């Protein structure tokens, strides 16, 4: 089934001010995969994700989502199958109440009211945020905002979930809850982050971006254990693979 594939071929993009952000990125993500996009600040992660939902259009090369190349004409279909969770939930939540925000996508798809209502309840339920539905988004805590932002994407029933730094700004507990939540989703997931522990927990495959190019692409377990590769791309081993400093000292003492 070619339905939920995401493919980039020689993707290049420069911002209008001339900053080259992507310099030839290629990959193919199959249906049901969970892929981490890692890289230091400024590596081009956010820029890449904005190409997957058509918020940016390829300068050179192509992006395909499912059966469509991402172009000006296919945007409605592309956006129906790709749900995006932006880095800052404050950018994503703009309606007076959480409920209206979650309904925004389905209403734009011109679904009948009953269907909209059931999607709103279902997606809030799936992020455990049903009790927030009447609250104004700007008054929520960081974790609650993130949950609401994810619900706004889920309510469009996307095949592919694209998330930009979903754990940034969360406290450890909210972060753990979020990881548990995302692990339960069956969508094709594409997660950009420099939270390598989260990528380690959620993604079977990792693509390393460095200065707008793919520096590595392979199984997470081998990539995130490769100290030299990560160091070359301005990243550090996930904490969970760094070994415990206390134990190391004990070992040294022996």
């Amino acid at each position, binding site marked *: 089934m070619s339905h939920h594939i995401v493919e980039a071929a020689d993707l290049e993009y420069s911002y209008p001010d001339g900053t080259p952000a992507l310099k030839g990125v290629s990959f193919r993500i199959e249906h049901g995969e969970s892929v981490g996009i890692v890289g230091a600040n400024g590596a081009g992660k956010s820029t890449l994700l904005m190409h997957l939902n058509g918020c940016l259009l390829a300068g050179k090369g192509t992006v395909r989502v499912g059966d469509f190349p991402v172009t000006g004409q296919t945007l409605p279909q592309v956006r129906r199958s790709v749900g995006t969770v932006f880095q800052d939930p404050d950018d994503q939540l703009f309606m*007076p109440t959480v*409920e209206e925000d979650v309904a925004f996508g389905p209403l734009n798809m011109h679904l009948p009211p009953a269907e909209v209502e059931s999607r709103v309840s279902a997606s809030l339920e799936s992020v455990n945020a049903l009790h927030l539905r009447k609250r104004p988004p700007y008054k929520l805590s960081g974790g609650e905002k993130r949950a609401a932002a994810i619900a706004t994407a889920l309510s*469009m029933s996307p095949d592919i979930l694209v998330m930009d730094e979903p754990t940034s700004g969360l406290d450890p507990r909210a972060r753990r809850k979020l990881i548990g939540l995302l692990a339960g989703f069956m969508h094709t997931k594409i997660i950009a982050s420099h939270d390598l522990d989260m990528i380690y927990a959620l993604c079977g495959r990792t693509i390393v971006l460095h200065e707008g190019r793919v520096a590595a692409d392979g199984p997470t377990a081998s990539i995130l254990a490769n100290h030299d590769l990560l160091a070359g791309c301005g990243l550090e081993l996930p904490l969970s693979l760094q070994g415990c400093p206390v134990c190391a000292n004990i070992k040294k003492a022996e």
Partner: protein
Amino acid sequence: MSRIDVLARDMESLDLLASRDTPVRRLDPRAKAAVTAMFLGTVVSFGKYEIAEMTPLFLYPAAILALGQVPARVLFRYLLFASPFALLAGMFNPVLDRETAISLGALDVPGGWISFASIMLRFMLTVSAVLLLLACTGYVQVCAALGRLGAPRIVITQFLLLHRYMFILSDEAARMTRAHMLRSRDGRGPGIRVWASLAGHLLLHAHDRGSRTHSAMLARGFDGSLPSLRAFRWSWADTCFLAGCGGFFVLARFGNLAERLGDLMGFAV
């Protein structure tokens, strides 16, 4: 708290007010938007020396204020906040226009002062009408109604983003002034030069954020139309409201209502 903070909180409170159940709130947003538009049209159609003739129009905001159960305090705070703009607009009239327009006994009142007063009156009337519309309907509902009444999609998008900008601007302004205060030597507010640079940063920030919000809207299939969760339903009450207010505005504009009300009062006294 800075003034801009207070304003943003009121923006919230306007939306909060709009979520209560009042007779005005139950009217169709389209009827309210149309009546407000007619009101604005009536107010600006008065000549620049017609002050007394305009006064009966205050009945409209007064009625909405009462029926919509909007606290007058909120309204006044907005009027106060926006008044510098009106003052600026009217400031030079008394200087430029010194010809006597009316004589009150021995006192000759120059036209400039009359037109200044008329600008202030108009300002109060129009701003309160719009604020009351928001407080009894909700910002997004008003936008949706404007869309239904045929406003171009680009305008609706602009209005929605404007709403966001208000929050964003006030948020960032509060954060930046706080950051400055913590670093300035005596903990006083920023001077004029620093203000200029702060304001520049602020606009850049707000622009970036606005465009990210716009991307987020597009990513969820936003095409400029604004389908609403609550379907609009036109009822008899809306027709009555529209006809009643329309009739009143026509009377106020062409029917010498001020004079008649004056006569009536005089008669009663």
